């Protein structure tokens, strides 16, 4: 073996050890890449982020492989937010039209909130006063058209946001931030005393009793964003919140 080959083999062995270690750590969590064959045979069904090509199912995105009985899908690790009807989103008014507001929701297409989809009666002359440009709103996605995302505020969770602040996260991390049945975000809310609204589009609103509490909630969320795939994440975050609680609360 030449020196170069020796070096490469050593490096390969090191990487192999690292990969197999990682595999045991994240037993269920295998990262797949576009074009990779993730299953063969007719037994499996291709879910999100995959497709069938003859006998094989291939991954179409860079993400985590998830198998639920016969359904195989890929949970993406990155990418912009793709709106789905029913999603709760946080967006910002960027422009007014004669019958509604254009909303930036950090998605490939602009959002549009028609006056008709707001609670109560709004005179079309008062559109600019009702929600001026720059206003931040919690809305729900009503539907998707070729050109924009139709929004609505006809839901009790929808409102205009006052006070607090927004943070931006990778939209693919949102499920982890919310947690099973909202358990993760509830933990953060309870431990910090903050109100938190998580938009499916990766925008999160935090408002708390003081800035220390708000920053703690923000830090906890950033932790989840950085390490979404470790086991026992909820306990890890609980520990973090306990350790860093503002002194008055203790």
């Amino acid at each position: 073996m030449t020196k170069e080959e020796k070096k490469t083999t050593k490096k390969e062995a090191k990487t192999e050890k690292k990969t197999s270690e990682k595999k045991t750590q994240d037993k269920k969590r295998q990262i797949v890449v576009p074009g990779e064959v993730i299953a063969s045979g007719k037994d499996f069904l291709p879910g999100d982020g995959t497709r069938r090509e003859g006998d094989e199912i291939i991954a179409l995105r860079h993400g985590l492989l998830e198998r639920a009985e016969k359904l195989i899908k890929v949970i993406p690790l990155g990418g912009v937010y793709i709106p789905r009807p029913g999603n709760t989103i946080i967006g910002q008014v960027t422009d007014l039209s004669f019958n509604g507001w254009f909303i930036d929701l950090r998605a490939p297409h602009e959002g549009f909130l028609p006056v008709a989809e707001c609670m109560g009666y709004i005179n079309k002359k008062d559109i600019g006063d009702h929600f001026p440009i720059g206003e931040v709103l919690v809305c729900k996605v009503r539907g998707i058209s070729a050109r924009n995302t139709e929004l609505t505020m006809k839901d009790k969770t929808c409102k205009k946001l006052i006070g607090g602040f927004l943070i931006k996260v990778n939209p693919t991390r949102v499920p982890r931030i919310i947690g099973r049945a909202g358990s993760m975000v509830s933990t953060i809310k309870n431990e910090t005393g903050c109100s938190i609204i998580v938009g499916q589009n990766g925008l999160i609103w935090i408002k708390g009793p003081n800035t220390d509490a708000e920053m703690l909630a923000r830090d906890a969320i950033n932790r989840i964003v950085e390490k979404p795939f470790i086991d026992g994440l909820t306990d890890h975050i609980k520990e973090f919140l306990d350790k860093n609680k503002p002194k008055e609360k203790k």
Partner: protein
Amino acid sequence: MDLANITKAKILEMLNEGKRMDGRGLLDFRDLEIETEASSKAEGSSKVKLGDTEVIVGVKMDLMEPYPDSPDEGVMMVTAELSPLASDKFESGPPGINSITLARIVDRSIRESGLIDTKQLCVEKGEKVWAVMIDISPINDGGNLIDASSIAAVVALLNTKMPKLEEDKVKYGELTDKPLPLNKIPINLTAYKIGDHFIFDPISEEQEASEMKLAVSLVFEKDKAIINGALKEGDGSLTITEVVETVEKMIKQGKKLHDKISKFK
């Protein structure tokens, strides 16, 4: 997406409490990482990471005719290309005002401090002088590109080696061991005004929340600081006290930065 007005209000509210979103003091700089030799094709180069902001600066040299009013002096030029690679807010095309402002602030800092001894860059009076071309290439705009670029430019110059000359012609790609003739190291500090507060080294959100900035270039002589350049840029106005107090704060912070950068000689 533009900065939300509620976030802007929060930034100001925290400043009123003497706090910042990432826990820093108003005058603190983020972690600074400096690397030299970002491109082996450059006569000198550097890569600087200031928090999330990352920028590469390269120095290229060539011979050219001197300017008619300084026939025995070398020539210097600073260009900044704000590639959309580094930010969704940058646009393709000819340099806009931000690109020009960035280049000019860095240029002023280097030129007015006399960092490059241009008199020693003369090869043949009136005919041939060295041109030092400094190109700023941001990789990620995480706020405060101006100061990060200024640091990167100075480090690149500190590590520049003169090209080989053969019969008064440049042998491209061949470098000597000779460094550029350099004098005092300038430090450029930009203070950003938010409400009534002045902060250093803003993150992107803070930079967006700010409407005015004051850029000052300093050199340090023994225990004194000399101001070589100053620029107020943006909307609004300042009192004389605000200017003087901010400059005093800059001198303090600047000394720390100066000592860090000097190590890269």
